[in-house]
């Protein structure tokens, strides 16, 4: 498309990146096909092409409006549109930039502002979140609306492996909300690694990956968090950590983006690029050890795998977990429309509860097509979101496997 970016942004690095992205878009509309919000609402304004167009207007100098904000808010940032786009338009980056500008210029009102600030304040702090969640569990009936369903009963976690003498070691992002919401996942990841002869070096000072700030239009806050994470990891990286394992694909996508996000930071660009290179989803490591893996003893065998958007559209690892699970003995059931978002999308299910619920209903219907016994996934957000409404259990896939 032709572009005429406005003076306020034309010559900045962000402006040039945005221009390059916009120039690639041919307005062909292919991305409409797989956009969950367009599929539900049928309005160009809620489609990727329409959002690109609305962002373009803002970049070309038109004052952003609440309407644009609404349509950007409805976007799940699932990036299915990127996977679909034949021209390689990086919608996700453009959306981040668009949201940032709109956020600056269109003030949030009332409750909306409170909820967004609340999410940004609480979620990234594991201890605060954990405390509130405990309180919430006790006071569940008193908690308002969409938040109430997010309060899950606590499941017991296995023990962390005892400190090992393995020479190989990796770092692991433990995440902000995951330890409190689904305590078994992190220790289970560490145990699998340990049994494969790889130690996990815990870095408890690192918690949130920065995605929450990022997607709520607070990119400076996100960057500050990223820098402090890099600082925490750096000594271990220098000591020879072979990877940074991120077992929540949403966080994984974000960590893999550090290099890009800090590319213009003279002090951090290089380190961030190194972190990006080291970041992996567990599947990337485990598929190399497929021969040593088997279904866990108590794991049901008929499994529907829900591929998180961040795994398939952001990290481009589509089909890999399913393939590994099938190979080690699971009966993987068919899942139509596997490329469509479940509606969780980070904080989306709290901010856009109606849309999130519709998408979840569709997703569960699709997941249950082949009558599975359990739904497996790879991201904490999808897991809790689906579990709230699912008749059958939803688990992180790492909980379903063991080292044989």
């Amino acid at each position, binding site marked *: *498309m032709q572009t005429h970016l406005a003076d306020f942004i034309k010559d900045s690095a962000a402006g040039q990146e945005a221009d390059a992205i916009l120039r690639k878009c*041919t307005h062909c509309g292919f991305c409409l*096909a797989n956009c969950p919000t367009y599929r539900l609402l049928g*309005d160009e304004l809620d489609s990727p*092409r*329409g959002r690109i167009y609305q962002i373009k207007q803002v970049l070309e100098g038109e004052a952003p409006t609440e*309407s644009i904000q609404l349509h950007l808010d409805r976007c799940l940032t699932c990036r299915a549109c990127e996977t679909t786009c*034949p*021209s390689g338009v990086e919608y996700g980056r453009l959306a981040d930039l668009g949201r940032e500008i709109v956020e600056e210029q269109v003030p949030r009102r009332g409750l909306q502002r409170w909820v967004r600030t609340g999410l940004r304040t609480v979620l990234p702090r594991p201890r605060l979140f954990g405390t509130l969640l405990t309180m919430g569990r006790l006071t569940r009936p008193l908690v308002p609306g969409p938040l109430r369903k997010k309060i899950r009963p606590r499941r017991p976690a296995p023990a962390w492996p005892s400190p090992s003498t393995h020479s190989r070691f990796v770092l692991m992002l433990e995440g902000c909300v995951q330890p409190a919401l689904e305590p078994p996942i992190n220790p289970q990841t560490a145990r699998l690694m340990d049994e494969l002869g790889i130690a996990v070096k815990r870095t408890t000072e690192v918690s949130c990956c920065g995605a929450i700030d990022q997607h709520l239009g607070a990119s400076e806050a996100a960057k500050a968090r990223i820098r402090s994470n890099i600082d925490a990891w750096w000594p271990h990286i220098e000591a020879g950590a072979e990877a940074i394992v991120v077992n929540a694909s949403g966080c994984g996508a974000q960590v893999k983006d550090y290099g890009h996000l800090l590319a213009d930071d003279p002090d951090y660009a290089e380190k961030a690029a190194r972190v990006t290179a080291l970041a992996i989803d567990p599947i990337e490591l485990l598929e190399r050890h497929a021969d040593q893996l088997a279904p866990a003893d108590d794991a049901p065998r008929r499994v529907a795998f829900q591929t998180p958007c961040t795994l398939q559209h952001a990290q481009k690892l589509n089909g890999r977990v399913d393939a590994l699970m099938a190979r080690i003995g699971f009966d993987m059931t068919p899942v139509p429309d596997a490329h469509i978002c479940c509606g969780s999308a980070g904080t989306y299910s709290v901010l856009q509860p109606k849309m999130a619920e519709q998408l979840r209903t569709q997703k569960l219907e699709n997941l249950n097509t082949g009558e599975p016994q359990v739904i497996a996934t790879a991201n904490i957000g999808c897991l809790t979101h689906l579990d709230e409404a699912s008749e059958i259990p939803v688990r992180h896939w790492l909980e379903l496997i063991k080292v044989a």
Partner: protein
Amino acid sequence: MPAHALFRDEDLRFDVDVDPLIDALRQVLPEEGLIVHEAGLRAYECDGLAPYKQLPRLVVVPETIEQVQTVLRLCHEAGVPVVTRGSGTSLSGGSLPHPQGVLLAMGKFNRIREIDHHRRIARVEPGVRNLAITEAAAPYGLYYAPDPSSQIACSIGGNVGENAGGVHCLKYGLTVHNVLAVKVITMEGELTTIGSESLDSPGLDLLALMHGSEGMLGVIVEVTVKLLPNPLTKQVLMASFADVESGGHAVAGLIARGIIPGGLEMMDGAAIQAAEDFVQAGYDTDAAAILICELDGSEAEVADQLKAVDECLRDHGATRIQVAADDEEKARFWAGRKAAFPAVGRISPDYYCMDGTIPRKQLAYVLRRISEISAAEALETVNVFHAGDGNLHPLILFDGNQPGQLEAAERVGSAILQLCVEVGGTVTGEHGVGVEKINEMCVQFAGAEIEQFHGIKAAFDEKGLLNPGKAIPTLNRCAEFGRLHVHNGELPHPELERL
């Protein structure tokens, strides 16, 4: 902006106060179904032909047939134009809004009403994507045959609007050959079903007339299509040629032997290179042209045909023939062709896609002329070609941010279309006239024919409110364009050999 005015004075005769209409529409439409603020309208200002932009007065996004009826009735009463939009992938500006009118967006009509696998019929709303029909039919071993390259996104209503074709249409037909019935709402707001689930229906063939009518005769609110059983097997092969001409002769040779392949596509050297760089399909980048040929049917048929095709292509000087070894390779051979447009999008900031059809025997001459025409404007052209049916897609490369280049590309495009008419072809094979080729219509048709088209239009839409200014030029426009020189079928350049 394009070199010529999108709308002419006579297309802009609908200057009415829309405020009362807006109030009335608010009563019938869902809350977000009426868009009047500029930021919202802006996102609807263009379709797949993005350089052509026009803000509508308002956009309506109805949910039910009754709402569409009311919208049309109210617009009819108020004398306000209506432009229907499906997925907005038209490459001719078919769903470009009218500056004085309503844009009727059919995106919410996206439900599949019925897949009757026993009778091989699907009944769907018009906003359903072409590919979604095939996906819904797949569990029964069925598919919907017409497969435009945009099939992932384009709507079946838009397919009827443009009579869309695809790479398999030589054998399986265009949209018009695969649609059994359409439910249509007239501009007055009346509902009628044209066609039926039977193979024919009484009266004039209005169903054929609706196909390719570019939203100018009525609004389609339901489409019934026939489904086909999946072919039992498929084989794909790819042949290289040292020049385009021998590729063209090879196609004629196949047909002379009685072979109608399921798909038959040709790409020229530049297209091969662009596609190969993009998807690494394993194309022969030394070739001046490649031919991709898909054979389908029962095992026995495909085996017989494969032998004959291989022989024939060798006889016609194929320098290399690759037969796909497995499904993955078949998909890879096709991937390059299907990604040809976006692949070109990556090597050039913008491209302009043309859509002429020519008698196949004129291929070499036409391609030579195309490169001369583009060279004269210092632009490059890349060619992909539905070889079986003579439908040529020259992609003219340009940079829209460079002053004057869009206009130059348009001049090249117009010259190419006129060339297609000269050699006995047409200005549009499947993308429609829209607003893009409206001047070239004056080259292809004489005054009486154009008047006859206007007569048909008036038979459906007396006030001329549906998609005004599209598809059929006014005689004034032709006069101004100065090209109404095709009288009684006498074409310019009578010295050229034709069919």
